C-alpha cells in the first residue's frame, strides 16, 4: 500500500512530471516534464562554460598585435564578466534543483493520497487550490525571485571579490583576475598600525548611528505630536512645509548645506554675526563638524519619521483615548500608555533598520564633510569618517576592490549580527498569535 508514494517520488526525482503522470495528474505532469526537458537542455548547454569561468576566471589575456603599422586588438577573457555570468548560471541551476525537489515532494504527497485511497486534485482543482491554501507562497514567489537575482546574487559576487586579486593593477578587460584565497584578509590585518584608526572610526560610527537615529526619530515624533494635537489649525499647511526636505533630492540639499555652513563665508555665520555672535567653525572644528552632520541629518530625516508616526497615530482607535479620559488620565499618561507603545510597536523594526542604515550612511558624511577635518593621528581618515567612508577612501580611491570587499564583509557581519539580534526580539517579529 505504500508503493504509490515511493514510486511517484522516485519517478519525479528521475524525470520531473513522471510521478505526477503516474498519479494520473496528466496536465500538471506534462507541464512539469516539458519544463524539465528545457531545464536539462539548458543546464547541459551552459554547465561547462559556467564552471570553467568561475573556477579559472579566464585564461587568455587580451592583447594587441602589431600588423604592419596598425595595432589589432585580440580579445581575451573578461574575468569579472565570467565570474558574474558563471554565478548567474549557478543561480539558475540552483533554482532548477529546488524545483526538482519540490516536484518530487509533490509527487510523494500525491502518491500518499492515493495510498490512503483519497482522490487527487485534477488540474482545475489544483489551480483553484493554490490561491486558497498556498496563497502566501504564491504572492511572495515573484518578489523573492527578484530579490534572489538582483540582491542576493550581487552580494555573493561582492563576497567572492574578497578572495581575488581584483584591483587597479589587475583590472579587466586588460588584465585577468585570479583567485588568491584569504590573502586580502591577511594583508588587511597585518597592518597593525591601523588598529588605532579602526577603533576611533568604529567608535564614531556607533555614536553617529545612535545620535542620528534618535534625533530623527524623536524629532519626527515631537513634530508629529505637535502638529496633530487638538486645536492646532492649518495642520496640512504645516505638514506640507515639513515635507519639503524630503522632497528635495538629498545630494542637492547637501550641496547647499555645505555652503550654508561655511564658517568664513556662509550665510549662517554672517547672520549670527549680525546678532553679535561669532559662529563656530562648523565644518573645520572636529566637534562642530560632527554636530553639523547630526543637525543636517536631522533636517533631512525628520520628515520621514513624522509622516510615518502621523500615519500610525491615525490607526490608534479613538475609544482607547476616550476610555482613559473617562478615567481622568493626564495627557502624559495617555502618551505613555497608549501613544508611545502603539508607535513603538509598529516602528521598532524600522528604527533598527534605520540604525543599521545610519551605520552605512555614506551620502551625508561624504557629501557634507568628506570625512574631514583630517585627523593626523588616523591613517587616511578624518574626524567625521565612519567605517564606510573610510573604507571608501582606503580602498576604492586606490582601486583595490578586493580590499573593499573584505571590509564590506566585516562591516556586514557587525551590522547584521546586531540588527538580527534586536530584530528577532521585536514584537513585530515574535508576534505569532495571529495565526489564521
Amino acid at each position, binding site marked *: 500500500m505504500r508503493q504509490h508514494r515511493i514510486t511517484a517520488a522516485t519517478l519525479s526525482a528521475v524525470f520531473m512530471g513522471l510521478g505526477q503522470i503516474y498519479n494520473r495528474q496528466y496536465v500538471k505532469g506534462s507541464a512539469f516534464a516539458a519544463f524539465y526537458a528545457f531545464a536539462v537542455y539548458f543546464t547541459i548547454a551552459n554547465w561547462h562554460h559556467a564552471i570553467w569561468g568561475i573556477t579559472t576566471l579566464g585564461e587568455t589575456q587580451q592583447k594587441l598585435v602589431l600588423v604592419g603599422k596598425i595595432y589589432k586588438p585580440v580579445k581575451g577573457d573578461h574575468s*569579472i564578466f565570467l565570474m*558574474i555570468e558563471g554565478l*548567474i548560471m549557478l543561480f539558475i541551476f540552483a533554482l532548477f534543483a529546488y524545483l526538482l525537489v519540490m516536484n518530487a515532494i509533490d509527487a510523494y504527497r500525491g502518491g500518499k493520497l492515493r495510498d490512503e485511497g483519497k482522490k487527487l486534485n485534477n488540474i482545475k482543482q489544483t489551480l483553484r487550490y493554490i*490561491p486558497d491554501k498556498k*496563497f*502566501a*507562497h504564491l504572492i511572495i514567489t515573484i518578489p*523573492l525571485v*527578484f530579490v534572489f537575482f*538582483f540582491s*542576493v546574487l*550581487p552580494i555573493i*559576487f*561582492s563576497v567572492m*571579490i574578497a578572495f581575488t586579486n581584483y584591483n587597479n593593477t589587475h583590472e579587466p578587460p586588460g588584465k585577468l583576475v585570479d583567485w588568491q584565497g584569504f590573502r586580502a584578509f591577511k594583508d588587511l590585518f597585518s597592518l597593525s598600525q591601523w588598529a588605532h584608526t579602526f577603533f576611533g572610526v568604529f567608535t564614531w560610527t556607533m555614536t553617529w548611528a545612535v545620535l542620528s537615529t534618535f534625533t530623527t526619530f524623536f524629532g519626527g515624533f515631537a513634530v508629529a505630536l*505637535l502638529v496633530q*494635537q487638538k486645536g*492646532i489649525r492649518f*495642520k*496640512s499647511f*504645516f505638514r*506640507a*512645509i*515639513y*515635507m519639503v526636505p*524630503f*522632497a*528635495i*533630492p538629498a545630494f*542637492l*540639499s547637501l*550641496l547647499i548645506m555645505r*555652503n550654508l555652513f561655511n564658517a568664513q563665508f556662509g*550665510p549662517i555665520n554672517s547672520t549670527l554675526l549680525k546678532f553679535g555672535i561669532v559662529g563656530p567653525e562648523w565644518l573645520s572644528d572636529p566637534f562642530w563638524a560632527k554636530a553639523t552632520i547630526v543637525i543636517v541629518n536631522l*533636517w533631512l530625516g525628520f*520628515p520621514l519619521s513624522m*509622516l*510615518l508616526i502621523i*500615519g500610525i497615530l*491615525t*490607526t490608534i482607535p*479613538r475609544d482607547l483615548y476616550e476610555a482613559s479620559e473617562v478615567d481622568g488620565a493626564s495627557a502624559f499618561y495617555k502618551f505613555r500608555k497608549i501613544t508611545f507603545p*502603539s508607535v513603538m*510597536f*509598529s516602528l521598532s*523594526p*524600522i528604527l533598527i533598520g534605520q540604525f543599521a542604515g545610519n551605520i552605512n550612511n555614506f551620502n551625508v558624511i561624504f557629501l557634507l564633510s568628506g570625512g574631514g577635518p583630517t585627523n593626523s593621528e588616523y591613517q587616511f581618515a578624518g574626524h567625521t569618517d565612519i567605517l*564606510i567612508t573610510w573604507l571608501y577612501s582606503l580602498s576604492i580611491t586606490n582601486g583595490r576592490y578586493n580590499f*573593499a*570587499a573584505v571590509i*564590506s564583509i566585516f*562591516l*556586514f557581519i557587525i*551590522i547584521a549580527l546586531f*540588527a*538580527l539580534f534586536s530584530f528577532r526580539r521585536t514584537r*513585530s517579529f515574535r508576534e505569532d498569535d*495571529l*495565526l*489564521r
Partner: protein
Amino acid sequence: MSGYRFRKNAWLTVSYVLLILIAVFTIYPALWIVLSSFRAGTSLFSETLIPEKWTVIHYKELFEKFQFGRWYMNSLKISLTTMVLSVFFQLLTGYAFSRFRFKSRKSIMSGLFIIGLFPSFLSLTAVYVLLLNMKLLNTHTALIMVSSAGAAVGYLLVKGYFDTIPKSLEEAAIIDGASNWGVFVRILLPLSRPLVVYMAVTSFAGTFSEFIFAQTVLRTEAKQTLAVGLFNMVNTQTSTEFTVFAAGSVLVSIPVVVIFIIFQRLLVEGLTAGADKG
C-alpha cells in the same frame, strides 16, 4: 476652569511658536535653493539670501541647452511605474508575513531583512552584467525592474502595520466567503491608505532622484532621467552650471511636493474612519 483654559491657550501659543520655528528651520535651505535659481550668475554660493539681480534665464537654459522636457517625461514614466510595482510587492510580502504562517517563514523574514544591510559598492557591477545578459542596458525597463526588484526587502513596515490591524475585521469577511485576495483588497488595503501613501511617496521620490544606477545603465541623452541630467551639470570638476542646476532641482522637487499635498488629505481621513466602520 479658567485656569485650565488659560493653560491650554498658553500651550497652544507655545505650540504655534514651535511650529513656526520648525517651519523656518525646515524651509530655509529649500528657500535658498529656490532663490539661487533666480540669481544671476553661475555660482550656487552667495552671501545674501535674496538675489541681488533676479533672472529667469536659468529656467530658459534648462530647456534650450538641455533636453529637460524629455528628461522630465522619462523620469515620470520610470518613477510612476516603479512606484506602483514596488508598493505592490511590498504590500504583498508584508501581507504574507503578517497573516500567514508557512515553512521557513522566519528565516525568509530575517534573510530579507539583512540583505538590505550589505554595504557594497561592488554589487552594481553584478547588476550591470545581469542587465547586459538580459539585453536591457540603456532601457527604462532595466531601471524599473531593478528598483522594484529590491522592494520586497522593505516588507517590514507593511508587516508591522498590518499587525496592528485587528484580525476581527477579516474574520467576518472570511465567514462571508471572501478569498485571501478579497480580504487583502477589500479589508486591508483600504485600511492602509496612509501606509500606501507613505510607501508610494518614498518610492516615487527615491526613484525620481536616483542617479547612481541610472547613470550606469542609461547612456543616450534621449533616455536620460532628470536626476542624471541634473547631476551631470555639477558632476564635472569645473562646473559652471550651479544656478541652472538649482533651477532644475526646483522643477524636480515640485512634483514630489505636489504629490504629497494631494495625498495629504487621505492620510488624515483614511484610517480612523475605516477602522470605525469595521
